[in-house]
């Protein structure tokens, strides 16, 4: 594959592995001593996509869809069964030092590796050595990260004594102290409260703005995806089901919009009533009839307030997971 203008290029990526299986019971257990049976699990099936430098893409799908497997392949931990992958024009699973210094893989489930007895500052200092960050750059980046992630009170604390939210902040600081160009974020807000999750989102947005880094983010929280990712890649059962703008997915999956209306009258003849409380109604109206319905509502009823909304992303995605894409 020749050098490209993509930060990440994935072509027909497949990953399968054999998992031992056996029926329950003693007889099957003895049988498996002689002849083990395996079942082939297809984790990824001909996945293809590219991500341009500086792009932030959301990578979503139900549990077991293949998101983390893809992330592991792209960062170099896993070796695929077939297909071609280039990240920054390098084959990731060769794990060359020069490549590893340009990427970061942060997992919400294991944000901080390494010695847990060390202080945050000791760990950052080790990262400086490991990634050959010149001291002036290290000091400058650390100052930025301190401000963005409110690290100051954490620097002298031991890793093992940090709360989950603090660990995630420190995990990001340790990953970003060497200013990676490509960032793989696997569930960065998992288990965090609303405030901590918001902080992480805000930080990622600012980091991307400042550095122009390329980001691939998986999350089950649609708030993460909505606020950070203009582009969405939806994967299910190891296949890419959708790749495009977030708004388009929403329109494709949900041919309706919601009209939220405050009125003393009865707007039920104008659309399907989804919700009704304290004089406020929510009507479901086909997308192409929204303008006409709104006009008729305003003419027929005394309207105090009216808003047209997209259906909640959670609902749209839930529908995509359960029913697939049409």
């Amino acid at each position, binding site marked *: 594959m020749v050098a490209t203008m993509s930060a990440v290029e994935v072509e027909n990526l497949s990953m399968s592995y054999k998992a031992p299986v056996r029926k329950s019971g003693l007889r099957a257990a003895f049988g498996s001593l002689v002849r083990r049976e395996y079942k082939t699990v297809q984790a990824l099936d001909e996945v293809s996509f590219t991500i341009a430098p500086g792009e932030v893409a959301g990578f979503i799908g139900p549990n077991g869809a293949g998101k983390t497997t893809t992330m592991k392949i792209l960062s170099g*931990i*896993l070796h695929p069964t077939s297909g071609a992958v280039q990240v920054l024009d390098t084959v990731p*699973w060769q794990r060359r030092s020069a490549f590893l210094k340009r990427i970061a893989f942060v997992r919400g489930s*294991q944000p901080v*590796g390494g010695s*847990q007895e060390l202080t945050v500052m000791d760990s950052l200092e080790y990262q400086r*050595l*490991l990634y050959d960050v010149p001291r002036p750059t290290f000091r400058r980046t650390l100052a930025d990260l301190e401000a963005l992630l409110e690290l100051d009170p954490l620097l002298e604390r031991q890793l093992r004594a940090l709360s989950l939210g603090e660990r995630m902040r420190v995990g990001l600081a340790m990953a970003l102290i060497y200013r990676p160009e490509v960032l793989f974020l696997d569930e960065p807000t998992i288990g965090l409260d609303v405030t901590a999750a918001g902080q992480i989102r805000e930080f990622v947005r600012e980091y991307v703005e400042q550095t122009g880094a390329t980001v691939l983010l998986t999350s089950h929280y649609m708030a993460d995806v909505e606020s950070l990712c203009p582009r969405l890649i939806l994967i299910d059962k190891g296949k890419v089901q959708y790749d495009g703008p977030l708004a388009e997915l929403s329109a494709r999956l949900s041919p309706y919009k919601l009209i939220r209306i405050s009125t003393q009258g009865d707007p039920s003849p104008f659309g399907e009533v989804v919700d009704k409380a304290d004089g406020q109604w929510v009507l479901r109206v086909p997308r192409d009839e929204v303008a006409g319905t709104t006009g008729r509502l305003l003419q027929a009823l005394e309207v105090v307030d009216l808003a047209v909304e997209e259906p909640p992303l959670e609902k749209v995605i839930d529908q995509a997971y359960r029913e697939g894409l049409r």
Partner: protein
Amino acid sequence: MRTAVLLGFRLRQEVLEWSGAWWFLMTLVVQAVVAPLIGLFVWSAVYPDDPAIARYYVAVILVTLMTESFEQHTFSERIYNGTLSHELLRPQPVAVGVIGMNLAIRAWLTLLGAPIVLLTGIALQVGFDWWAVARSTPYLVLAAVLVFLWTFLLSLTAFWTDRVHAVVGFGSQLVFLFGGTAAPIGLLPDGLRRVAEVLPFYGMSGLPAEIAAGTRGDGSLGYQLVWVVVLVGVVMVLWRAGVRRYTAVGS
């Protein structure tokens, strides 16, 4: 050079890390000294008039403390819990982390075990020829390398089995039997002694202890070096196969 700097920093990190677990390290010290102490009591009772026995076993205790390896607990656990992935994504050889931790634990065991060695020596009125002790240094260094390679080699089986402790436990029994802890190998029956002299285990414990105790004037560094080369080769082959497997199926 860079690897040496990273190793130095990692060693410092690990020494700090383990400083918080001194009580746990004390249990490791006790485990390490029990087997040579039993050997000492048994063989001192058999040969009450031979001061070399006590001298030899005090040296074995010290060699054991300075060469203990626990990769089945440290490295293998990283395979089992998946944190080996963190190490694979660092721009440094994974061995830097493993060796750094190994040296840190040995430093702590030596420090915490020194009083036991000293007390045993004083209690049994053991006197050393310090020239012999100095001469044993290169043998001790190679013994430390051999024990590490042997334990690391067996710990690599964690890529294939979740019973790594049984595998390493079996390996430790071989060191105990043929390394000179169960009995100085000179006291083994002829056939067994000849086998023990060829296997690598004698070079891991008995050989440096005999030289330090002055019961053997010279030994063959070549014998230890040959085993270092063999074990390095096998470790490299197994490491590559293990990582290939790990990166094919994940953690």
